[in-house]
């Protein structure tokens, strides 16, 4: 459960670090590192308001979204300690747990009957669908590379393989997981969380009707999801058999660097045109496919 606690710890500071990185880079004084937590505190103290046209789905969706992310957190190992839920092909379950949370948010957006939210839900569903092959091809590559199909086994044995390709797969994996995390959390270059025009929004327009406590739950889910992906990147970057104190320090450093990278990317990168987003996401699939082809060649799976 060390990994679970560390993910929660990282999630507390993740949005603050992103904000601070963006402020420093743009030369602003900007909000403090605890500002997102203060905003969350404010939202948690407010009541939710539900439209009379919405049903129970709208009321339960944020809770289900958060529950799905917490369950997914329990499937991420830390160092050589296996995850709380650990079984063969658990990465498929992990992916569909997150997808289930997203599915409920999408149908809750449709439940409001708002045209804007329907549009946002449509875009979110499309981009999530397009990023799915990249995630699965990458995990399939790692599974073939190590010969195991559960997160715990894959990450524990990743560095034991002693293959020349370890560094290639860890770099490609880290790059792809950063991009997948950005897409899954609706950040740059796919979406801009700070935009004020509904027509250009994706995730923000989908949760326009949520407020108070429910909105706080959605934000918490997003922060936790970032920390979960950061944890996957950490597992891919650090051998599992290192000293535990070193592992904890490296976990914190990697999560911090991950948040700073997101802040820098959001500062220096322009948002994609909406029509360019599918190309961008498919590029990730193509890159992960190259990694897959290499693993097919080095393991001699086809002959």
């Amino acid at each position, binding site marked *: 459960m060390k990994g679970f606690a560390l993910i929660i710890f990282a999630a507390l500071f993740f949005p603050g670090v992103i904000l601070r990185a963006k402020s420093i880079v743009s030369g602003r004084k900007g909000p403090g590192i605890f500002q997102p937590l203060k905003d969350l505190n404010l939202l948690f103290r407010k009541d939710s308001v539900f439209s009379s046209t919405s049903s129970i789905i709208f009321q339960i969706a944020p809770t289900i979204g958060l529950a799905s992310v917490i369950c997914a957190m329990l499937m991420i190992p830390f160092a050589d300690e296996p995850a709380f839920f650990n079984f063969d092909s658990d990465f498929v379950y992990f992916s569909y747990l997150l997808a289930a949370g997203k599915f409920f948010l999408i149908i809750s957006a449709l439940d409001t009957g708002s045209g804007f939210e329907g549009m946002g839900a449509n875009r979110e569903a499309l981009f999530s669908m397009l990023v799915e092959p990249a995630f699965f091809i990458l995990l399939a590559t790692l599974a073939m590379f190590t010969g195991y199909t559960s997160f715990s086994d894959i990450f524990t044995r990743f560095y034991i393989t002693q293959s020349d390709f370890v560094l*290639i797969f860890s770099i490609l994996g880290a790059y792809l997981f950063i991009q997948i995390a950005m897409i899954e959390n609706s950040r740059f270059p796919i979406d801009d969380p700070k935009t004020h025009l509904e027509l250009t929004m994706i995730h923000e327009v989908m949760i326009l009707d949520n407020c108070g406590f429910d909105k706080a739950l959605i934000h918490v889910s997003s922060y936790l999801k970032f920390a979960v992906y950061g944890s996957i990147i950490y597992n891919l970057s650090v051998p599992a058999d290192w000293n535990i104190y070193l592992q904890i320090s490296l976990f914190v450093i990697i999560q911090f660097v991950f948040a700073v990278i997101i802040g820098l990317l959001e500062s220096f990168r322009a948002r994609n045109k909406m029509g360019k987003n599918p*190309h961008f996401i498919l*590029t990730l699939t*193509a890159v992960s496919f190259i*990694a897959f*082809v290499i693993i097919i*060649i080095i393991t001699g799976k086809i002959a």
Partner: protein
Amino acid sequence: MTNYLTVMFAITIVYLAITERFAVYARLLGIQGFILFGITLSELHKVSIGDLLFVSSETLFFKGIVVPYMITRIIKSTNVVKVANDTLSGFYELLFIIISLLISIFMAYTLKNPYINTVFLTIAFFTMFSGLIIIVTHRLIISHLIGFLVLENSVFIFSIAVGNEMPMLINIGTLLDIFVGVLILGFFGMKLKPNIDELTTLKD
């Protein structure tokens, strides 16, 4: 080292398929030139030192510096900065590229033998298909030129795949380089159809 360079080369092909600005094409071709230079140095250990020096310096000079520079000059002199609007969408082009990668690996395994490096052969087929896809899906003649340069890089990788056993093939690849240099010089030096409309309509 070769493994890293090969993967990087394959990734540049993916980005070539989706980019729309010719300046980025020129930059990616330059990067490919430098990657091929690295692959040449690390792979051709059985050829004579003279051949190795000639091939590696030619790769670095032509592919890494001269060709990207010439393309950049052509872009500046013709003011054609982006691919035509009616070009096939990058999304579908990328789908074709992914399918071509799948076909490449099957073709490479069909031709598998102890004398040919399968990774090189796969990437060479992949590069060849990518060059062909760029040529048939784009309308501007500069795009066709870039597609041809990608094809030419694929021939070079083919030659490296069998280079230690058949060094003559590398010289043929080098000859193709020089031919491309002359082609671009003709295109650039003679100011062949600098007008955008003519560039659009000039297909053959």
